[in-house]
């Protein structure tokens, strides 16, 4: 079997998780690599989670929240956006391709977009190849 990346995805409950559910209820097919973690708001997602995911062997991390202006909690998604850019800068410094962390806005009605995103992102991570964080970290101990 070809290389199957592991992708952890953090989804906000109101838009993106619902959107992912919609992809399900609409039976849209997408790559099975994306593993979803539900949080109430993309504003809840903090760098620790992302780094932890890489540390535990994720090859990519996908964050989805409501579209700008649509946040169920007004502005949580903007907080997420700000963290995303800083975090991306940091992981690049740590030798990770910035594409391994991705932020997309998925609304509750965008099941299709979510499915397409999952496929497309999985493909792009496949191209990047395995992320060696876990391997490198485990050499030590």
């Amino acid at each position, binding site marked *: 079997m070809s290389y199957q990346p592991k992708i952890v995805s953090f989804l906000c409950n109101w838009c993106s998780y619902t959107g992912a559910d*919609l992809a399900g*209820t*609409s*039976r849209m097919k997408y790559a099975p690599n994306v593993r979803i973690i539900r949080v109430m708001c993309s504003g809840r997602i903090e760098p620790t989670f992302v780094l932890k995911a890489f540390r535990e062997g994720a090859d990519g991390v996908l964050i989805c929240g409501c579209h700008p202006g649509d946040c169920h909690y007004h502005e949580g998604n903007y907080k997420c956006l700000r963290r995303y850019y800083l975090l991306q800068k940091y992981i690049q410094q740590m030798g990770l391709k910035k594409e391994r962390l991705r932020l997309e806005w998925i609304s509750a*009605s965008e*099941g*299709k977009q979510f499915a397409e995103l999952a496929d497309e992102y999985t493909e792009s991570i496949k191209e990047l190849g395995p992320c060696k964080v876990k391997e490198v970290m485990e050499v030590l101990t």
Partner: protein
Amino acid sequence: MGENLLTAVYFCGISNEHAEIIDIAEVAAYTKTISLVGEIWHQKDFPVIDPDEVAAKIRGDGIKRIVITGYQPGMFKSFFTKAMVQAGNDPGDVFLACFGEFGAYKRADTERAKAILACAIYGVSFEEAASPEEVDTSLDTLVIGGGIAGIQASLEIANGNQKVYLVERTGTIGGHMAMFDKTFPTLDCAACILTPKMVEVGQHPNIDLMTYCEVKDVTGEPGNYKVKILQKARRVDLATCIGCGTCSEKCPRKAVSEFDADTTLRKAIYIPFPQAVPNKYLIDADNCTYVENGKCGVCAKVCPVPDCINLDEQDELVEVTVGNIIVATGFKVFDAKRIERYGYGKYPNVVTSLEFERLVNAAGPTSGDITFRTQDKKKNWIFAPEGNKPKSIALIHCIGSRDENYHKYCSKVCCMYSLKLAHLVKEKLPDAEVYEYYIDMRSFGKGYQEFYERIKNEGVNIIRGRTAKIDQDGDKLLLRSEDIVGDRLIEQSVDMAILAVGLEPREDTTEIGEMLGISIDSDGWFNEVNYVSDPVDTFTGGITVAGVCQGPKDIPDTVAQASAAASRVLQSILKGKIRKSIKELSLESIEKRAKELSIIMEGQL
């Protein structure tokens, strides 16, 4: 009130003195007795209506106000507004007295027609003038029908901490919605969003859920209705049944499954569907060998719970007292056999949309596989999982709807559910060709048009032009249609055809209407007080209608209406008072009240 408001009454639209319609002569005679009325005009007196002539008349007679009355007086309003302006009057002084607006249709409603007209002549609202007195009300509520409308209304009231009796005819609540696979346009799985509500109803401490029951008789007054409910013998004890299904497994008798729209068989002791509420078995007496001839009784023998199955249980009559009644009896689908040229009932692969809805449903007879109808050993045509899969499917809109030969009205939901079914076919059989034949695509709701665009992009062939007939051609079906936009004739050969059947009133609508004193409109649906401003109340106090039984509706509208009906009930409960029936009010009392109101209004001016 002086002569300065001299009024002319124009009777319109009534060409012949048909015995069924309101007695116009009598209404006109009554009108003469109102002092404000200066002139009475009949449409037949104006073979050609010429605004100049009418304006001259208005000026000549010193008319200040015009009341147009009849079945559809609005059709004449612009003409009179124009005439009034030409005569130098205020265009706002043209009033309408529409009989139908407040439920006067038949000869028997002549008195109400007079009252409606009187209110217009006095320039006051009928709803205000015909406001019956309030009496104390019992706090409990009866909801008839356990579909989504009944469920929503019951929950709404029960969540206000009030007692509700929810009476459902079949063995489970859920209604038609539970049978659907997906709901448009969000493609939520119907069961997924409905079953939590059903469970909530089943568990709600304020809801007395009475399934397999029928309302037999309603007596009493608004606020104090005595309702006789027939509890049909379920023959399985609700309290002790654990829903294990052993009885059903062993039962030797089969019958068609109503829940699966008759597309498959179930046992004589059965549970309508796995998520039924209450999730308990019941015995279909019409198909039970024991009930027929006293032999069998296998179910009782295998049942692990002692005394749970009582094959000799009898129907029972229960009486409850309630203050309000919400009628949410729903609909049935159009019988496609009535249109022979589509071959439904003759060709096995012509199916109705409701049948198809069960077919694509993952919980349906084939676990969601789209297969042809097959014949079982006993020659019943059923859907079975092992059937072959069609490679091309056609959907035909407006079956029984928008058709003068069947139902004139539009069933409102078929366009969208057909698009949805097209999507489901594409999803399950991506290589199948899907054709959709429509007249007008009514994608009017929130997100509907967007859904339509999406389906168009999914490769469904959407053709404007309703298929005229279906012929069997070997294994295939041959559809003949005109592609109106594409300007060509289409003779399409497909494997399966889905008829998008419309909604029609249930057979017992008239019966229920008579029992509750609700009138039925010309299409057979329940009448509301006023279609525009009061879409849930009826002329009988304490009785409201909700959902499709009042006219075809999609789910959001049904839910909103059910909540609206609940609001009426909660309002009366919070006040502890309920309005008596408008229909009980006498003409004199309405006229008197109208007069009073007009004096108050004049005072305010």
